[in-house]
Structures are given as C-alpha cells and as structure tokens.
C-alpha cells in the first residue's frame, strides 16, 4: 500500500534554477496553477554560481552587434550541429529577456551613458555579456526568485523527484520525496517542465554541485523521451587546481575577458601557437593586439585566450602532458600582469573580479592582483540533454517539456560562455508559455497506482541492505571512471573499459545500503541519486563511442579530426523496448535560406 502526500497542479516545474524559475513565472502569468520543485533551498540552484554574464546582442558597447552575429557565433561555437532554430530564437529573443530582468529589479553594470554594460567572452565576436561584476548568476536567480514569490507559485523546497509518471503516452506527473522528513509526494500535473540542470557530478573534477547528478536526463529517459548530443560534455579550461580540496572550482572566463593571459612554465603564451582554422580570421596576430581588444579597441581582434573552451582546455592539457605545466599540473593564468598597462591595476582587478579575488585569497592564499593563478580543466557543462521542439520546448513525450541545461540543441558540440544564462531565460520563458498552453487544453491525467508503488519500493530498498556497499564510495568510483576514461581526450579502448566498469558499479549500486532513518539522510539521498548518475554516465560513454570523429567538446584520440559526414547528424538515444539504450543518427535538417545566408556572410 502506498503512502504519499498528494498534490495537483496544472504545470509542475522541476528545478528552481534560472530555467525553472523563468518557466514558472511565465506559466503563472498565463493564469494556471504552478508548482516549483527543487532539491535545495530556493535561490541555491546552480544558476547562483554563474559568474561571467548573460549573452545578449544588445549592441550597447559595440553597435555592430545584432542577433545575426550572435546566431552565427553560436553556430560556429557549436560546430554547426546545433539545432539552428533554437540558435535563431535564442539570438533574437535574448535581448528582450535581459531587459525584462531589469524591469523586475536586476541591476547590471552600466556603460558611460547609463545602459547595460557588456563584456567580452570566448567565441563572441563583440562584447556581448551583460554582467554584474562576477556574480551575474546571483543577480539573475535572486531577481527571478523575488519576482516569483509574489506570483502565487507553490514552491516545494528540498524535494527530490524520483520518477516521472505517465498516463498512456502522455505525462501525468511526478513522484518524489522531501529531504527533511523523507515522506513521499505524488504530484499530479497536466504538464511537466524539466529544468534540472546538468550532469557535472558524473566526473571527479567538476565545477558543479552535488545536485548535478543528471536527474532530469535520467527521468526523461526512463519516461521514454529522446535525448540528444550526450557525447558533448564541456570541460572548462580554467578550474582551480591547488590546493587539492578546491580542485575543480571555477575560475571565470571573465578573468581572460578582462585581459588575463595563459602562460606555460616557460612563460610562453602557448595559445598563440595553435589557432584553429575556423577562428584564424578572428584572432589577434600579436599579444599587443589581443590586449587592445580586451580594452575595447574595435579594430583589434580577440586574443587566443578567448578562443572556445574546448580548444583552450585541450591546449592546456597538451602543455601539461608535454612537461610545460605549472608545479601542480596546470598552467598559469595571469591577470596581475595588467599592472604594466594600467594605473591602479590592483584596484581595477578587485573591482571587476571581486569574487575571484576573494576565492583565491581565502581558499588558496593567492593574491591575484600580485601573482598568477594555477588553473586546469574542470567538468563544467552538459550540452546534451532532452531533445525538444525548438519553439515549444516539448519533448517527444506529450506534456513533458525541458529547458535550460537539461535540454539539448542550442549549443551543439560546444557552448559559448554566457550562452547558458540567456538560454535559461529564452527557453525557460518558452517552456513556461507552452506548458501552460498545453495544460489549459487538456484534463488532468490519471496515475497508475502500480507505477507509484514500484517507485516507492525501489526508493526504500537501500534501508533493507544496511552496511553492504557504501553509496558514497560507489559515487566516487563512478566519478573516477568517467574522469579517467571518458574525459577531455577519449579513445575506444578506454571507453569500452569504462562501460565495463560502469556495469560493475551498477551492480554495486543495487547493493548500496544506508543506515539511519528517513529524516534528512544524506546517505539515502546519495544512494537514490546513483541510478541517475550511472545512467547518464553510461549514455555519455556510449554516445562518445558512437561519434567517431573529433568535434567541439568531443575529442577522440583515435579519430582526431573532424569528419564532414558526422556533421550531418545528431546522435539521439532513447530507451529501447528491452530496456537497452538505443542510439540513432538523426539527420540535421537543412538551414532556412535566410539563416544559411547569415552563416555564409559571417564566415
């Protein structure tokens, strides 16, 4: 017999980061009854950590910028396997979404004439990132949260969804538990929006928090939705590497945007040695020109530090492998050097990058205004996710929508910095609007009691197996497998081994037991997250095996170059009839003429 607390809503939003909150605000404004569910407290989702800024072609700093350039930049960054319709909508709508935040109270840094200031970021042709120092995500999530709480949303904090429920083909709601008491909850809903973020905890070195166990990806997969681009995991080039306990914590690209440079042990700006063909025309010819670019000289081109993340991360890895790394196995990121160029450099750095200044001072005893930082790649962002319709964000399960990091398409093989926060706003808004529309047009679906009972039994199983496998240990081992064998540089042999090890870990997870009771039991929560973590890890490894070329964030040592044929499809995975992962290559439809013309023009 199941025991749970029942709830009923029109639209259920799973996730209270930027995407979830924006969706909830929109759905609520459309007049339907909305619930928001989050594993953490409100305002603590990953979005709060975003630093650098939100990309939108406002053209405030350089009036040559417009949506067409942003569109072309996003497609180039994604190596042309993006969903081009999403890239178009994103570029067109981001400016309005950013301005709207201002109307809800966000305060961005300003230009001299009082408009929203924009900064340079990797892969963006013009200064495009609206920002607030280096705490843009905080400003964004707080604005949405504080706007949202006055709209009558039902917010369920510290509730975790374990299972999506269906009525025939369509979505019917979700089943989960509250962390505080460990009670079960059944959320019936006409439409569900997944906004659960990424999968970074699948790796050992990551900038992501405990929440990022790929829940939304796994929930959608088990509900029969298709996922796409799972081979594309972004490794950010600059994470902290020393001391060991801070390994992986992000060092914002904003440091490079403000003039920070990367050097190897020999003091060389090694990125000048290797500039990818797609970017030769846009990259500075000399260090001097690069500096002028960061200072707003419109005739200068970008320094190579602002090349796309996949490339910079691989170059760093190469320097380290070839013995030119820093003492703790990274390279040097130097912003202090700008004192040669600017009076008051130290003050300028503290003003522009206050969080970075404190982070290094407090966690590593380093004063970034005086000495270089040591940095290395860290797992950062998931380009892959739920496959959705570009306009409505609906998955191929009727009534199930997805937005933000857990959805795929916009970023293709590699996301540009700043394009995530704008993604959350643009597609959060769309998901909210279409989910509300969907909900208004249909009755409340039924739920299958057996489905609920099965989910409940499965959730309680770890209590019956106390003191067998330790769930934390299974998690750590799985993170090591992914880090070592399915990381920045991949080969078939290693990934086959990874799959073997993941299979063993699956079995270990089935034995994972927990002590204590159901009240706020982190061990139990960790055990419950394992299923998702292992499922997404396996999907990443299988997808990466399947793509036999190197493109964007996906680099194969055994297939080191790009294969034009592989640029014609996306890899889609769904759960097969026998429960196996079924992969298909889905052709990318030809671009609309207007968009194709933009790409040609901006080559």
């Amino acid at each position, binding site marked *: 017999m199941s025991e749970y607390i029942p709830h009923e809503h029109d639209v259920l939003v799973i996730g209270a980061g930027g995407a979830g909150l924006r969706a909830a605000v929109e759905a609520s404004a459309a007049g339907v009854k909305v619930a928001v569910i989050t594993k*953490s407290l409100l*305002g603590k989702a990953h979005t709060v950590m975003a630093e650098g800024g939100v990309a939108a072609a406002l053209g405030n700093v350089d009036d040559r910028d417009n949506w067409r350039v942003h569109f072309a930049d996003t497609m180039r960054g994604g190596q042309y396997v993006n969903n081009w319709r999403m890239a178009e909508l994103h570029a067109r709508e981001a400016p309005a979404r950013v301005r709207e935040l201002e109307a809800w109270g966000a305060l961005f840094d300003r230009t001299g004439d009082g408009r929203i200031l924009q900064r340079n970021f990797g892969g963006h042709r013009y200064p495009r990132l609206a920002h607030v120092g280096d705490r843009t995500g*905080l400003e964004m999530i707080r604005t949405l949260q504080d706007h949202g709480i006055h709209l009558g949303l039902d917010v369920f904090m510290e509730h975790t969804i374990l299972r999506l429920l269906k009525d025939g083909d369509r979505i019917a709601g979700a089943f989960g538990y509250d962390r*505080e008491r460990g009670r079960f909850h059944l959320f019936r809903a006409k439409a569900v929006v997944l906004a659960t973020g990424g999968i970074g905890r699948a790796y050992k070195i990551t900038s992501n928090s405990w929440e990022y166990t790929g829940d939304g990806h796994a929930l959608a997969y088990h509900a029969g939705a298709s996922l796409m681009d799972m081979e594309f995991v972004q490794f950010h080039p600059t994470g902290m590497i020393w001391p060991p306990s801070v390994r992986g*914590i992000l060092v914002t690209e904003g440091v490079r945007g403000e003039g920070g440079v990367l050097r190897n042990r020999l003091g060389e700006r090694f990125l000048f040695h290797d500039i990818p063909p797609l970017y030769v025309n846009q990259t500075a010819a000399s260090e001097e020109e690069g500096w002028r670019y960061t200072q707003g000289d419109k005739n200068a081109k970008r320094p190579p530090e602002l090349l796309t993340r996949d490339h910079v991360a691989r170059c760093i890895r190469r320097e380290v492998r070839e013995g030119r790394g820093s003492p703790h196995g990274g390279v040097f990121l130097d912003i202090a050097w700008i004192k040669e160029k600017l009076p008051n450099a130290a003050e300028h750095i503290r003003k522009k990058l206050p969080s970075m200044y404190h982070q290094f001072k*407090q966690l590593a005893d380093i004063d970034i205004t005086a000495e270089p930082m040591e940095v290395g790649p860290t797992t950062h962002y998931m380009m892959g996710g739920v496959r959705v319709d570009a306009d409505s964000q609906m998955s191929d399960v009727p009534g199930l929508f997805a937005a933000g990091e857990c959805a795929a398409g916009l970023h293709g093989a590699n996301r540009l910095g700043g394009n995530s926060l704008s993604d959350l706003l643009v597609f959060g808004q769309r998901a909210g609007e279409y989910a509300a529309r969907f909900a208004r047009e249909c009755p409340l679906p039924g739920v299958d009691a057996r489905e609920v009972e099965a989910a409940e039994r499965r959730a309680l199983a770890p209590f019956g197996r106390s003191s067998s496998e330790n769930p*934390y240990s299974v998690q750590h081992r799985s993170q090591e497998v992914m880090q070592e064998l399915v990381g920045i540089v991949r080969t078939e042999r290693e990934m086959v081994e990874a799959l073997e090890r993941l299979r063993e870990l699956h079995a270990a997870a089935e034995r994972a037991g927990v002590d204590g009771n159901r009240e*706020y*039991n982190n*061990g139990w929560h960790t055990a419950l997250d394992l299923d998702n973590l292992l499922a997404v890890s396996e999907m990443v490894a299988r997808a990466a095996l399947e793509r036999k070329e190197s493109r964007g964030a996906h680099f194969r040592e055994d297939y080191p170059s790009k294969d034009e044929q592989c640029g014609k499809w996306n890899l889609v995975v769904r759960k097969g009839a026998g429960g196996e992962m079924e992969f298909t290559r889905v052709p990318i439809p030809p671009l609309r003429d207007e968009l194709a013309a933009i790409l040609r023009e901006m080559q």
Partner: protein
Amino acid sequence: MAKATFRIWRGERGRGAFCEYDTEVAPGMVVLDAVHQIQAEQAGDLAVRWNCKAGRCGSCSAEINGMPKLMCMTRLNALALDRPVTIEPMKAFPHVKDLVTDLAWNYAVKRRIPPFQPRKPDAPDGTWRIAQADVDRVQEFRKCIECYLCQDVCHVLREHHLHEQFMGPRFLVYTAALEMHPLDVDDRLAPLKKEFGVGLCNITKCCTKVCPESIAITDNAIIPLKERVVDRFFDPLTKLFRIFGHSET
C-alpha cells in the same frame, strides 16, 4: 598524513549530543571537506547542506568553534587542530537534524516585504538609463548570498526570539536595497517601522562582523534606514513638510 578531531552535533529536532570523529586532514582543506569525508567514511546519514563549495550559494552555514561561518570557506589551517573542532547548527532557527536547521521563517519574511516597483521606463528605447554610481550604491547589498549567518547572531532573534516583530539584518539589507534601488518608487518606511521592527536593532554590529560577503550591514543599510524612519515619523519639521507636500499633489 595528520589527523584531526571534529565534534559534530548529531541529533534531531533539538535533541542530540556531540559526536567525535577523527579524520585525516590534508593541506588546503576546509571544514566542509572534513564533514564530507566523515560523512562518506563514518557517518553516512549525517545531515548537512551545501551546494557550491565556493562561498557563493550560502547553504553551508554553521557554527564552527562557536563562530557563525560558511563551512566551505573556513580553512582548517585557520583553526587550532590540537583540540577538537566543534561544529554545530545555527541556533536562531528551529533544528531539523544534525547541521541542518529549518529556514522557512526567512522565506516567509521575505514574501511579506513589498516587492520592487519600478518607475515608468523613461529612455527612448523603452528602458531606463542608470548611472553606474547609482548601481554601485546598492550592489553591496545585492551581494548577499542569503546564508542567514547575520540572522543567526542577531541577539534580537537569537536570544529574544522576536521573530514575529523583527525582520532581522538580512532583510534590513534587502529592504535597503529596494529603498535605494535607482528605479524603485515604492515606500517601505511605514512597514519597516511597524511590522518589521527596525527600531529593535540597537546597532551592536554583530551581524556585520559575521557577514561572509563583508556587507557593512549596520553602517550602510540599517543606520540609513533608521534615519529615514526617524526623519519621517519623529521629526516634527519633516512631518509638516510631508503634510504640505501631500496637499500640493
């Protein structure tokens, strides 16, 4: 490798006791690392909140050797490890389990504060022009990560339990940010005085001392708010002005 001892408060809803755990410590470790290690190796069901591990989300607040701090930003080398390090939950809020407390009151207070209300857009493009200097003035307040450490130390809440009458330093900062927002046109002085009890603060500055974001809570937020309230409600001259001002509009 060196070992250190951690005395962690374990228990549910206020009842419990300290448990001691020995664990290995490495250079650069923060308190949260030690707690995680203990959780993974010795106490699987230990309850603790965290998210970012970088001082940005404000989830991991606790009292470390009696001092309210973020566990993720407290380096072990800043503590004396020759004796046990004590870690307790915040005391100004109802206890849930181990290091976790019930913060619902904070969320409820915020919902009662009259929300942001901008003036009509007045730039030709339908937005606003705002000077950086005006932004700078409130950005300090907007840095707040809602860790509630300031609420935890404020004696009005912690000792006198005046949660019903007083919003606490966090929300005085929040209200100051709204009041000084360059676009906001609402006026929150009356509720500040009445429901939110700004007068209950007697400027001990304990909140300012613990703020991990170094917000000058008392000097820059509370005192200016108090002055505005006093000007409005107690200064007879201003009162007169207001009456006249009112009758003219």
